[in-house]
């Protein structure tokens, strides 16, 4: 037992955050302001996601943290330990076993189920920010559904690169109403936003929470003659051989050697445990 209140935050704060979450779920894609608290970690490390997780966790939950798909990087390890210590909840790296998953920049490859909650860490919740810097104006644009500007960005991409070069934080329109930034997930993950799980987005520095209820339609914006393309590297995973997962490029030496591996470590490990082998998997790799 620790000296912290369950999950670090005090009960009033959690109640306030839960109200914001409920409002967000009631208006999918709408950015609900909330009084973000100072957390014992710097902004940019997932303070928004941590607060949403803290308000969501119950003692019976099993918690998983993903950082860019991986369970074993600094961010994932530190947040997992934070909740082990302050909430005493069970943790796991298995996607299927977790009830609450906090993620940074990826959606797990394994399809989520109805009894799971996916919490995103969001650096900049406002999809229109870099086009229209005035917050008063972007709020008005959301309120009045003036989203022409979002397409200007895609237009600029095509005119400069010949195709829509936005490859992460690809804007989606939620249930024909709000345009939403799905946090910096690769656009490969955008089709997975239509999920049976509850998806909550927390931006700590910007003090916004928004949400996608289960089975909510989130359509990636595009042009009729340049349709949305959830692209990925044209390779199979070097370790597990999966051809359908999102891949990281790993430089292996200074002579141009490189390999592509699943960014979702749990997915890769599960496949290797089931006997799948990629081209570059040595006998000791598994």
């Amino acid at each position, binding site marked *: 037992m620790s000296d912290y209140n369950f999950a670090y935050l005090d009960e009033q704060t959690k109640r306030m955050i839960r109200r914001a979450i409920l409002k967000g779920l009631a208006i999918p894609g709408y950015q609900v302001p909330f009084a973000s608290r100072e957390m014992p970690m710097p902004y940019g490390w997932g303070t928004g996601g941590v607060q949403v997780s803290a308000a969501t966790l119950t003692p019976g939950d099993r918690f998983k943290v993903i950082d860019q798909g991986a369970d074993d990087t600094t961010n994932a390890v530190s947040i997992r330990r934070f909740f082990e210590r302050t909430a005493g909840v069970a943790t796991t790296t298995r996607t299927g076993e977790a009830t609450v998953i906090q993620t940074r920049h990826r959606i797990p490859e394994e399809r989520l189920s109805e009894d799971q909650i996916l919490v995103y860490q969001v650096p900049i919740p406002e999809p229109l920010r870099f086009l229209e810097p005035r917050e008063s104006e972007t709020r008005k644009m959301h309120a009045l559904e*003036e989203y*022409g500007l979002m397409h200007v960005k895609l237009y600029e991409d095509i005119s400069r690169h010949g195709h829509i070069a936005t490859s992460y934080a690809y804007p989606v329109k939620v249930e024909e109403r709000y345009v939403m930034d799905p946090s910096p997930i690769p656009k490969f993950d955008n089709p997975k936003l239509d999920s049976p799980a509850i998806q909550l987005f927390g931006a700590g520095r910007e003090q916004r929470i928004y949400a996608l209820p289960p089975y909510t339609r989130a359509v990636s914006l595009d042009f009729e003659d340049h349709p949305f393309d959830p692209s990925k590297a044209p390779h199979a995973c070097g370790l597990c051989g999966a051809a359908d997962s999102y891949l990281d490029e790993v430089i292996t030496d200074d002579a141009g050697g490189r390999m592509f591996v699943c960014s979702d470590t749990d997915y890769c490990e599960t496949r290797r445990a089931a006997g799948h082998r990629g081209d570059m998997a040595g006998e000791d790799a598994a």
Partner: protein
Amino acid sequence: MTPLLSVRDVTKRYGARIGCAGVSFDLYPGEVMGVVGESGSGKTTLLNCLAGQLAPDTGEVIFDTRADGPRDTLTMSEPERRMLGRTDWAFVHQHARDGLRMGVSAGGNVGERLMAVGARHYGDIRTQAVDWLGRVEIAADRVDDRPTAFSGGMQQRLQIARNLVIGPRLVFMDEPTGGLDVSVQARLLDLLRGLVRDMGLSAIVVTHDLAVVRLLAHRLMVMKDGDVVETGLTDQVLDDPQHGYTQLLVSSVLQV
């Protein structure tokens, strides 16, 4: 004939000071109205009130909308007014950088209006953008350049293209030739005159340059200290000014 824009007794005060007082006029389709006066005479205040960018203290601004006929734009809901601002109205700013997105290419600037009203076909948007750049005499190979790479005159022409691409019915112009050198001014005026005639636009042109209104405007309104001191046909007012201030204004024009 219904006037396109009918202004009744528009007054705007800044505290104790008067911006513009009791302005009334009718603007008919295809007509260009010039508003002249010295700096601080309330020209721009009036224009901003008419274009829905400032709320006047009293008065009515009745616009003949496509869907519902004459409506007071001041009592309209904000979404409706902003919709008008994107479709039937256009606003040409004095400084092009106020009216352009400087970080977006010329094609994107022209296309923004189209996308704002629902165009979602890249090829079509681009074709129209290139077409409009041609109409304002900007070469098609500059379509992907940013306005920062354009000269002042080109920026102003780009702003005009961006405003006219959606086929507005009423254009508000705030000193459209201000800050341009005379030869560029002449070309721009020539271009504007052609566009206004070809598209049958109505326009309200605010300027302190009498040559501009002589070329563009059918009717003229002279303002001083927030009041309209004289109105009439442009040539009539300029050739036979009645009010003392108008006489002063006309006689102040430098002759070359």
